[in-house]
C-alpha cells in the first residue's frame, strides 16, 4: 500500500526559531503524506499518525540547543504519544530537543572544533529502528549535515549498552561504509549520528534536504520512506 492510499498525517512541531519546518513539510508532501503544523503552545495533539520535530534554532539555541524547546507546552503531549508508541522523528535540532527531553539517550555537545559544519556525509546504517522498512544494516546513505552542536555523547558505560540493544541507528563513515576517526565530522562518540529508543528516532543529518539526485543525494527520500514503513529505494 502506498502512502497516497494510507494518507498518513504527520504532525510537524514548530517552535519559535525552527527553520527547517517548511523543508520538512515539503518533503512529507513529496512522499504523499499529509503534514499538519503543530504550534509549540498546544497542550494536546490532534489526530495524527506520526510526529516530526524539525531542525532549526529553537529559541535561538539560547541556554543550550534544544533545552528551552524541551520544556515547551507541547512536549508533555509529545512524550505521552511516544510512550504510547507513536513514531517520533527528531532531525538535527529536533534530535537535540528529544535528548534534552529525555526521550532519547545521550546529549549533543558543541562540535569540539568550535565551528558550524555543513556538508554531505556518508552514514552507515548500524541498526534498523523498529518500524523501518527497506533499510538494512550496512547500508550507506549520503546525507547533508548542518550543525554547530552535533557531538553526540553518552554517560560512562552507556555506549556498550546502546550498541548491544541496537539503539545506534547511524554512524558517520567513509564512502565504503567503514567507520573510523577520520570520518568523524564533529567528535561524536563512536561516530554516532543517529539513535533510537522505542518508537523515537533522532538523527543529526537532514533527510529532508536529500530528496533528489540533483540536490546532491536522494537518500533522504529513502530514509523517510523507510520511516513511513515503505519499501522504497534500493540498497547501495
Amino acid at each position, binding site marked *: 500500500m502506498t502512502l497516497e492510499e494510507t494518507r498518513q498525517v504527520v504532525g510537524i512541531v514548530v517552535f*519559535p*526559531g525552527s*527553520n*527547517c519546518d*517548511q*523543508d520538512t513539510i*515539503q*518533503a512529507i508532501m513529496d512522499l504523499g503524506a499529509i503534514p499538519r503544523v503543530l504550534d509549540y503552545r498546544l497542550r494536546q495533539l490532534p489526530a495524527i499518525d506520526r510526529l516530526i520535530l524539525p531542525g*532549526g*534554532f529553537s*529559541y*535561538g*539555541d*539560547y541556554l543550550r540547543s534544544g533545552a528551552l524547546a524541551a520544556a515547551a507546552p507541547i512536549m508533555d503531549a509529545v512524550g505521552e504519544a511516544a510512550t504510547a508508541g507513536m513514531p517520533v522523528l527528531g532531525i538535527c535540532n529536533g534530535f537535540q530537543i528529544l535528548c534534552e527531553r529525555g526521550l532519547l539517550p545521550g546529549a549533543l555537545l558543541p562540535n569540539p572544533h568550535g*565551528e*558550524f*559544519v*555543513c*556538508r554531505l556525509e556518508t552514514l552507515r546504517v548500524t541498526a534498523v529502528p523498529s518500524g523501518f522498512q527497506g533499510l538494512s544494516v550496512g547500508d550507506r546513505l549520503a546525507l*547533508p549535515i*548542518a550543525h*554547530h552542536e552535533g557531538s553526540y555523547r553518552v554517560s560512562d558505560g552507556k555506549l556498550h549498552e546502546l550498541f548491544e540493544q541496537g539503539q545506534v541507528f547511524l554512524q558517520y563513515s567513509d564512502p565504503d561504509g567503514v567507520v573510523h576517526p577520520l570520518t568523524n565530522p564533529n567528535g561524536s562518540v563512536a561516530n554516532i549520528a543517529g539513535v533510537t529508543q522505542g518508537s523515537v528516532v533522532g538523527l543529526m543529518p*537532514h533527510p*529532508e*534536504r536529500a*530528496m*533528489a539526485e*540533483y*540536490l*546532491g543525494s536522494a537518500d533522504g527520500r529513502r530514509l523517510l520512506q523507510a520511516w513511513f514503513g515503505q519499501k522504497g529505494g534500493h540498497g547501495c
Partner: protein
Amino acid sequence: MLTYAEVGLTLSEYQEIQRLLSRNPNDLELGLFGALWSEHCSYKNSKPFLAWLPNQGPFVVQGPGGNAGVVLFNQDYDVAFKIESHNHPSYVEPVQGAATGVGGILRDIIAMGARPIAVADVLKFGTNDKARALRQGIVEGIGAYGNAIGIPTVTGSVGYSALYDANPLVNVLAVGLLPHLQHIGADGAKPGSVLLLMGQATGRDGIHGASLLASQDFGTETEAMRPTVQVGDPFMGKLLMEATLRIVREGLADAVQDLGAAGLTSALAELAYASHVGVSLDVAAVPCRETGMSAYDIMLSETQERMLLSIPEANLEAALSAIETFALPVAEVGRVMPGDFLRIVCETQLLADVPTQVLVASCPRQVLADDFVERFTEPPVGESAPVPLTLDHDLGLRVIGHPDCQDRSPIYQRYDSMIQVRTVWGPQHDSAILRIGEGADGLQIAVAAPSRWALMDSVAGGYGAVVDVLSRIATQGSVPLGLTDGINGGNPDKPEEYQRVAGLVWGIAQAAQDFGVPVTGGNVSLHNETHSQAIWPTAALGVVARHPHPETPIPDRPSGKGLKIAVLNPPEELSLGGSVLAELLGRIGAYPRIVPDRTVQALRLMGDWARDPDTVGLLACRSVGIGGLFVALARALMSASPEYGADLRLSSDRAALELFNETAGQFLVFLDPSRQATWEHSAKRAGMTIAILGETTDSPQIKIQAGRTVTWELQALWQAFREGGEYHRVG
C-alpha cells in the same frame, strides 16, 4: 551644546543647515543632520558617479532608491536583491560586525515584502596574524546569523591583500522572492496611519555608527569605537522576518521600512520623504532597553532587528494580533500626517521639527569637473606586467596555491548552504543555481570582486568585474536580470582616491551599458583607510539570472577522456596585467582594457551554446577569471569523479601568457570531438575564435607540451589548492 564637528559635519555643511532652516538647529536636530548628511546615508561624494550606472532594462520592476532592487523573474515571482557593506564594524568587532551585516541586508530584502532565499558574501582579508583572527571572527559571524535565521549562503568570493590588514571588507548580497508585482516599500504611507515599531527594544548600541564609524577613516582611536558596533540576534531576526512577511502578505501595512544605519532617524526620514508625508514620533513611546536614554540616544541608536510599519487605523487590530502570534515586542510610536516634516515629541513637548526635504535631499554634494570622465579614456601609465618566457612546474603550483585561488571549503562549510532545499549548485561551484519550483526556471546567482584588476587601472578593473560575473551566467545560458554593486574605496577627500573609486564605477557603468544589464541597486563604502593606507578600490559585483533548466546545469567538469579542450574567445593581446601570476612575479601591472564588441559577442555565443549544448557538443565549461585558464582547468579536472587529466599543446613562447592571463570574457570548454565541424562552424559564423588546446585523458595529470613538456600530477595540484602554493617546497 553639541558642535557640528562632534556629529561629523563640516563648517560649510553647518552653515548650509542654518541657511535652509533659517535658524540654528538644536542639539537633537544637529544629531539628525549628522546622521543623514553623513557619507554613509547621503552618498554625498558618490551620487554624482552613481548617476552613470544604467538602471533601466526589460526586467526592472524597481530600480535604485528603495531598500533593494526588484526584477521580474517569471509570471509568479519577482526577485529583490541588493549588496551591502559592513566593513568598518567588522574590523572593530568582527563577529557582531559581520553578523549584523547579514542581518541588515536581510531586513532590506524583507522590507520589500520579499522572503530571503539566499545570501552570498564578498570578503577581503589582510595577510597578517591579526587579519587571520579577523577572518575567523567574520566567518563565524556570517554563519552565526545566516545559519540561525535559516537563509542559505550559496556562493561567495574571498580575496587577500596586505592592504586589507586593517580594513577587511564584508559585502553581503541578499536575494529574496516576492509575488510578482506585489508592491510594498517606504513610499506608501498615508496620512492617518499609525507608526508601529516592532522588534528589539532600543538600546545604546550603534549610536553614531553611520556618522562616525562608517564615514571616517580609521586611526588609533578606532578601538574606542567598539561600543558603536551593534549586536545581532538572529532569533529575533527570524521572528521579525515572519511577522513582517505575514503583515505584508495580508495587506495590513501601507509602508514598511527597516531600521539600519542611523536607526529611527533614517527610517522615519526615508519613509516620510518617499511617501510625501509628515511624520511625528513620540520618543516616550519607544520601548527602551535601558533607563535614562535621551531623545538623542533613541533617535540615533542602531539597535538591530527593528522594523517600522505604517498601518492604516482600520488594520491596526489585525496587525497587532499578527505580531502577537510571534510574541514580538511592538509599540505605537507615532503618526503619519499630511505635510513635509519629521517631528519629534516627548509626550506633549516638541523636541525637533525639520522639513524632510532638507534632511534627506539637501545635503551638498560633490560636483565633478566638466572634464572629469575624460581622465578615464586612456589607461594610466605605469609599470607593465612581466612577460615570462618559459613555463615551469613551480609557477602552476604557486598560482593555484595563491590565497586568491585556494580551496574555499574551510570557509563555506561553516555556512549552511543547503537550507530551504533549493541549492542545486552551492559554494563549491563558480556560481550558485537554485531551483524555484518543480520543473520550472531556476535562479542563478554569481558574485565577483577581482580587486587586483582595479589596482593600477580602476576603469579596467570595474569593467572586468562586470564581465567576470556575466561570464559565469553565460556558461549556463541563463538570462541576466540585473546587477548590484558594492563599491569600496579609500578616503574620498583625497583627489587620487576619489578618482580611483569614480573610475571603478565608470568601468562598471560602461560594461553594464555594453552588455545591456541594468544596475538596480548597491552600496558605496568609502573611508576604508587606516593610517592613510587605502585599500585597493574594490567592486563587489552580484548578478541574478533566470536559469532555464536548474535541475540539470551545464557541467563545470569533464565526464570522460578524449574530449576536446578549447578556449572560446582567447584574448588577441595577451597580458598578465592584474593577474595572480604577475603579483607572484613582483609587478602587478594594469589589467587589460577589455574589447567590448567581441566580448559581448563571446558571452552571447557561450550562452547560445549552453542553451543548446547537444547541437554543438558542449559537454562542460567554465569562465576564465582569477588564476586564468590554468586554474579553471585544474579545478575542472580536480572536481571530476573519477578524475581525468589533460594533454595540451601550446606555443612555447606564449604558453605562460595563455595559461595565466586573467582577461575576462574567455571560456574553457570541453567539447564532443564528433561535433567538431558544428562548433567550428558556429564559432566562425559568430566571428569568434575558438582555440583547440588538446584533449582530456584518463591519467590524473595536466601535461603541457610547450617546447619542453611540463607535467603536474593532480595530486600535487590538489595539495597546493588545499594547503597553499608553498606546500611542495616544505614537503
